[in-house]
């Protein structure tokens, strides 16, 4: 180490965000059976459930056929996968890995960006799996609609990647992952993911627009359902993403101050 060169040393570009880091993170996801289970198997089971149970299918399909249900399941899978991906920070905190990373030039914002990207990649896998099932199960849509729905279902999962990060910093270790299943389940029911809100009790219909699932699913269904685009959907998505993001950032700061 040549001390004359102290000023030559530079911090890494992009705060340490880089493709090697991303590639190793993706490899970790692939090795983890639990994440694969959440991402792939859960949507498959749901899909089968709706196919077998005719009454449920009749109620949920409305005038748009099985495509309506398929979008719901795609959004659900994307939500679940993205939030589980975000919540993985809880495990890394418990292991002390977050603290080890603080001995490197990695900037916290780059770490969070890596976690968001990997969480959303999981969401994308889930959407693709559900679409494959849909195409196989008789959903017939123009290619442009497929792409639009897929892209929107996936992009809006950013809300849930942020929710996962928030829970990951809020709850200790494995608890974060365990909280996500039931939470996402309840949110998707109330948000009108599987059963159209018009079939729901009045109370639920009134609460629904304020849940973080509502904006996501309305936007994802827009290319299918058509009609007029409600700006409140967008407000819902942006608002919840910002809320979860800010909460995660506040908890992150509390976390680093204590250690």
């Amino acid at each position, binding site marked *: 180490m040549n001390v004359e060169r102290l000023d030559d040393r530079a911090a890494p570009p992009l705060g340490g965000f880089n493709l090697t880091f991303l590639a190793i993170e993706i490899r970790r996801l692939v090795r983890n059976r639990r994440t694969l289970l959440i991402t792939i198997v859960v949507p498959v089971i749901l899909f089968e459930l709706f196919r077998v149970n005719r009454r449920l299918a009749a109620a949920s399909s409305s005038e748009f056929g099985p495509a309506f249900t398929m979008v719901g399941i795609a959004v659900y899978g994307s939500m679940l996968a993205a939030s589980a991906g975000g919540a993985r920070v809880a495990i890394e905190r418990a292991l002390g890995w977050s*603290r080890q990373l603080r*001995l490197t*030039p990695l900037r916290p914002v780059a770490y969070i960006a890596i976690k968001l990207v990997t969480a959303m990649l999981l969401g994308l896998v889930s959407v693709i799996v559900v679409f494959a099932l849909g195409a196989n199960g008789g959903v017939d849509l123009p290619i442009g609609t497929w792409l639009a729905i897929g892209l929107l279902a996936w992009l809006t999962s950013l809300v849930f990647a942020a929710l996962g990060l928030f829970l990951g910093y809020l709850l200790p270790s494995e608890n974060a992952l365990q909280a996500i299943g039931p939470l996402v389940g309840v949110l998707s029911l109330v948000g009108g993911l599987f059963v159209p809100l018009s079939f729901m009790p009045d109370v639920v219909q009134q609460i629904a627009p304020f849940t973080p699932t509502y904006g996501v699913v309305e936007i994802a269904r827009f290319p299918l359902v058509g009609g007029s685009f409600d700006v409140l959907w967008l407000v819902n998505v942006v608002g919840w993403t910002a809320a979860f993001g800010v909460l995660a950032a506040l908890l992150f700061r509390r976390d680093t101050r204590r250690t």
Partner: protein
Amino acid sequence: MPAIAAVELRGVHRTFGSVRAVDGIDLRLELGEIAALLGPNGAGKTTTIDMILGLGAPDAGSVRVLGMHPRDAISRGLVAAVLQTGGLLKDITVRETVRLTASLYGEAQPVDEVLERAGILAIANRLVGACSGGEQQRLRFALALLPDPALMALDEPTAGMDVEGRRDFWTAIRHDAERGRTVLFATHYLEEADAYADRIILLREGRIVADGTAAEVRSLSAGRSVRANLAGADQANLSKLPGVRSVELRGDRVLIQTTDSDAVARYLLTATAARDVEVVTQNLEDAFLALTGDDPAPDPAVTPAGRVG
């Protein structure tokens, strides 16, 4: 312009609740020094190292590393550390861990070279979760070698290592220090501080109670002990000799703690029938116990001149 210091702490305080973990530390480490922070649990060693790494900010006082803020020094890869609390991911291999960490630095040493120097090239493809505690500690050391840091901070670095691992580790550390790297390590192994540090900084209750070479710290705890066989020794008389701090009789054996061992030995050999007279230098452990024991902390003025303040 004065030379840049590897580490400079000025009036540093840090409190956790009602506990004063660090209670006024001034410390300057020169480039290329190997210094040990020695002290019992709760003396403030880990808190001090954390502040040097920017993991915690002092409540009062300033911390500079290589003339800059600790976090700046870290983001330029000038400082690295091996911490007890630093966790590792269990689901990736040893090599992946090193590759990942290397990718976070602007400039890093080659991965295989670092694995080789830390002695874990042979287990590079093993999952971290399958590695022993000692192997994981070597991996943390490998990660700390990546940026070729100017300052390496180590908190109980050889915990969990076997004898051979410990020896390899210190050989590697000394080799780098010869090339100009500054090393600061916290330890409660007295032998480790004695054998590997150029300088020992003794902490107690968040303050520096002694600071100097191993020999200087040793001498601070009041000199030597003189032992002899002397039947019917007169304890009161021996206690009156100049420099004597305590006289203990164990049968015919007499043990005298003194700051003037020559005077005691001369008296024993010329004025009494004492036989088998021995003069024993206090070891570092005696100094450690004397300076960190339950009695009130010694006056900081006794620390070697020029080190404190």
